[in-house]
């Protein structure tokens, strides 16, 4: 009885022997293959090290968003950013997965880890699905966080509503972070205030940021580039347009890296 199934048998034995196969209990568990933990905190201190060596008041950073499972586009975008050595770090504004699954985070990490300079990740609504929130916290750390580079203040704000058990974003935390800040303020978040899930909280959010000087806001989620300076909505990674923010003391501007 030698027929086509013999080939399948051979492939089966071959693959089993090469030991490529592993036991998987569920795509929804949090048994990560990567050992990367708390990467935001570690990368922030790397950024601070890099920029104190150069000049903490004069640097460029790139913003990308909504890479989802477009790993090929993310790969190209990473290459593009790497080819510009003046870009000292990158911010991913969320949705680096489709379903918040562990291997989606790992696939994205495989691409993002190729960045020459460090990157910081914000959580998106898709990253919240399944066990995504806790996986994000394992890999990147807290979903609300802030850091300083010289006199520049960066605030990563988790404004996910529906996927976060339909809960109100932690505006108290945001208010606290913004209180009494001097210098440039960069507010990094996934949803825009016009997203449908932010409908209930739009006014509250706008009242918090109202009258704050030197505030620059960066969003993702809509997948479409939208610039109303000092507010930028980054396009999805597959557009391969990369907004780059240039900080020169208290003068902040932007330019776009566009595909050739």
């Amino acid at each position, binding site marked *: 009885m030698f027929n086509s199934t013999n080939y399948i048998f051979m492939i*089966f034995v071959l693959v089993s022997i090469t030991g490529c196969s592993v036991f998987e209990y569920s795509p929804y*568990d949090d048994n990560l293959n990567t050992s990367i933990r708390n990467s935001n905190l570690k990368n922030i201190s790397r950024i601070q090290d890099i920029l104190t060596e150069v000049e903490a008041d004069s640097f460029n950073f790139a913003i990308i968003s909504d890479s989802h499972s477009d790993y090929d586009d993310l790969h190209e975008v990473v290459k593009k950013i790497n080819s510009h050595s003046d870009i000292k770090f990158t911010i991913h504004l969320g949705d680096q997965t489709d379903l918040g699954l562990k291997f989606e985070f790992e696939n994205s990490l495989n691409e993002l880890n190729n960045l020459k300079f460090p990157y910081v990740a914000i959580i998106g609504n898709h990253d919240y699905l399944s066990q995504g929130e806790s996986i994000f916290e394992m890999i990147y750390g807290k979903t609300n966080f802030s850091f300083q580079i010289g006199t520049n203040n960066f605030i990563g704000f988790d404004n996910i509503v529906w996927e976060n058990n339909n809960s109100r974003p932690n505006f108290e935390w945001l208010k606290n972070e913004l209180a009494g800040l001097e210098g440039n303020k960069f507010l990094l978040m996934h949803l825009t205030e016009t997203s449908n899930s932010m409908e209930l909280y739009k006014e509250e959010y706008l009242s918090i940021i109202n009258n704050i000087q030197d505030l620059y806001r960066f969003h993702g989620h809509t997948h479409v580039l939208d610039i109303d300076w000092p507010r930028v909505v980054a396009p999805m990674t597959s557009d391969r347009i990369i907004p780059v923010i240039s900080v020169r003391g208290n003068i902040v501007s932007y330019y776009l890296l566009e595909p050739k």
Partner: protein
Amino acid sequence: MNKYSILFLLFLFNLIISASDFKQVFKNLTPDQMPLQFAGNQGVISMGFGYSYTMFKRNRTTDLMYGYIPENISGTDLHIFTLKNTIKHDFCKLRDTIIIVATFNLNTICTISHNTHLMWPDHYPDGYYFTNAFHLQPSIGLEIKMHQDNHTNISKLSFYSELGILDQHTYHYIKTGRVSLLNSINLSLGCIYSFKNNATEIGGKDH
């Protein structure tokens, strides 16, 4: 109608369409076999019951299995329901007593856990997300069973291993070419206790 009753109806529907002979499903609801499996994206251990039948001259089985992973292993409690459709092909005989069967499986895996939904909660607009509780996993496997004419218990037991690949990995591979399909293959092991003697099934049980 809660999500569990919808789940049950889905499985029932799948069970009915996967069997060629409707009468057989309803006439003989007594299971033909009990599978027990380790891994395979169906939980650490999953078990259930199944039916064997013939369709297009092929031996087939359909199993409904349940697996569970506690929070300390998976991060959150996972309840996993699997509908396993298998086509079997007698592959070769060893020493006239052992039969090696090639199996081709399509597993529909439904997982109930934190933030996975069959029906999305009311605060989402209709159709905002498709259900994120289902996955398909095709697999190929080998099953070893004893072929003995005397009706001993050992002849009712068979062992199998399967190599499967989850739909999402194939999707990522086709879409981007940036993931390794080989690294996405998972291995599972299991055994099946048949309520009928294996010997009677050789060559297919016709209806």
